[in-house]
């Protein structure tokens, strides 16, 4: 497959691994903040190729993991509302709410359908005038423009039975929050596809204000290893900056057209990140003139009171201060088959990935 196979050549990989071994002098901690990176790093066995001094930790890069329990509860309540169908990305199906999940709701008779895009959800609304279709809008800057395009399409056509329950979030404020909370990080492996939309300029504040190294990279093994090498060199040279390794997709300015769609439909708001709390201006909400598409406004939703499991440390894992097997519940009460916290549910979650792939000791 073009743009994939060439970046997986074994010889290039082993050469990069050698270069890293030779350049690394001391200990480095790098955080990645993208679920796709979490999965790729472990799927390709990257940690097994690195010398012991390099530690890779996962941050809050999985949109499912940082979605609050209350949001899931609201979706479940909506799915049981007469005349409402929830059309969702598959990733949300098994996320545990306070008492249940969307998957269990469906088994209990709720109208829950899996879609691959916001567009598909709109098409369901168009072909089922008797149904109010709610699309859970989760995801970061990579996904928000797609929701924006779809909402504008619905507005343009006058579709009245399509709604979004918004939970889109943006990365940079969360990264800043993690730095300020004191997690020890030497550099960031910056999110590859968020950056396609935002451009590298969105991350300039990190080296400028905090002196941390940043490299924006892709998802193939050569991308990831190149990025690690570039981060090491920045640190060794005391020259932190934002570098783009993923040049075939990312530019300094990003995708202006996508940004325009986002700005037309959304405005910033405070957002509750599971494990991190409320972060100012880290979320997106529908602008006033498009509020008629907001499921939160259109439907009255009552949700149960949420008491988080006292032993669940998803928050600390999402902040990068703990690793999955430090959690008392990990691999015992909390497994991919019976997840307690969101980090275990999502295929991109740190705990799920650790459980599936965890590397050689």
């Amino acid at each position, binding site marked *: 497959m073009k743009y994939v196979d060439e*970046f997986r050549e074994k010889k290039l990989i082993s*050469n990069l691994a050698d270069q890293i071994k030779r350049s690394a002098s001391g200990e480095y901690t790098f955080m990645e903040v993208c679920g796709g990176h979490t999965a790729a790093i472990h799927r390709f066995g990257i940690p097994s190729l690195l010398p012991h001094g390099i530690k890779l930790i996962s941050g809050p890069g*999985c949109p499912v993991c940082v979605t609050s329990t209350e949001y899931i509860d609201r979706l479940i309540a909506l799915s049981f509302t007469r005349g409402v169908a929830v059309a969702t*990305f598959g990733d949300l199906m098994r996320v545990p709410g306070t008492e249940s999940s969307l998957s269990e709701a469906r088994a209990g008779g709720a109208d829950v359908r899996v879609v691959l895009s916001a567009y598909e959800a709109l098409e369901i609304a168009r072909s089922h005038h008797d149904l109010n279709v709610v699309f859970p809008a989760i995801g970061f800057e*990579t*996904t928000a423009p*797609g929701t924006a395009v779809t909402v504008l399409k619905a507005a343009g056509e006058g579709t009245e039975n399509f709604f979004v329950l918004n939970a889109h979030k943006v990365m940079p404020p969360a990264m800043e929050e993690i730095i300020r909370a004191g997690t020890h990080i030497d550099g960031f492996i910056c999110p590859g596809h968020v950056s396609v939309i935002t451009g590298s300029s969105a991350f300039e504040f990190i080296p400028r204000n905090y002196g941390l190294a940043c490299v924006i990279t892709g998802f193939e093994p050569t991308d990831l290893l190149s990025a690690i090498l570039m981060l090491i060199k920045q640190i060794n040279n005391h020259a932190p900056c934002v570098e783009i390794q993923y040049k*075939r*997709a990312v530019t300094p300015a990003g995708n202006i057209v996508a940004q325009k769609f986002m700005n037309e439909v959304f405005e910033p708001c405070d957002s509750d990140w599971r494990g991190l709390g409320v972060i100012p201006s880290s979320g997106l909400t529908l602008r006033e003139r498009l509020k008629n598409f907001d499921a939160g406004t259109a439907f009255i939703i009552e949700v149960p009171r949420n008491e988080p499991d006292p032993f669940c440390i998803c928050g600390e894992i999402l902040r990068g201060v703990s690793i999955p097997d430090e959690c008392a519940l990990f691999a015992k009460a909390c497994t991919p088959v019976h997840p307690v916290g969101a980090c275990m549910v999502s295929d991109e979650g740190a705990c799920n990935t650790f459980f599936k792939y965890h590397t050689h000791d």
Partner: protein
Amino acid sequence: MCLSVPARVVSVDGEMADVSVGGAIFRAGLQMVENVRAGDYVLLHAGFAIEKLNEEDALETLRLLKEMDDAITE
């Protein structure tokens, strides 16, 4: 969910396109990319093309990797 993969544009039909990922054909919205033609590669994410892949830059990245490879094996 964050998954975006390189997809080859098979045919364009207004603001939608058929794109191929390893032979599997998907529909993609082209609202966020410009001047897309059959044969181009785009990043497909959640039903939308979020960027056109730049072949020159891809080749440049590969060239740098191979240069490094040559330097090591000399």
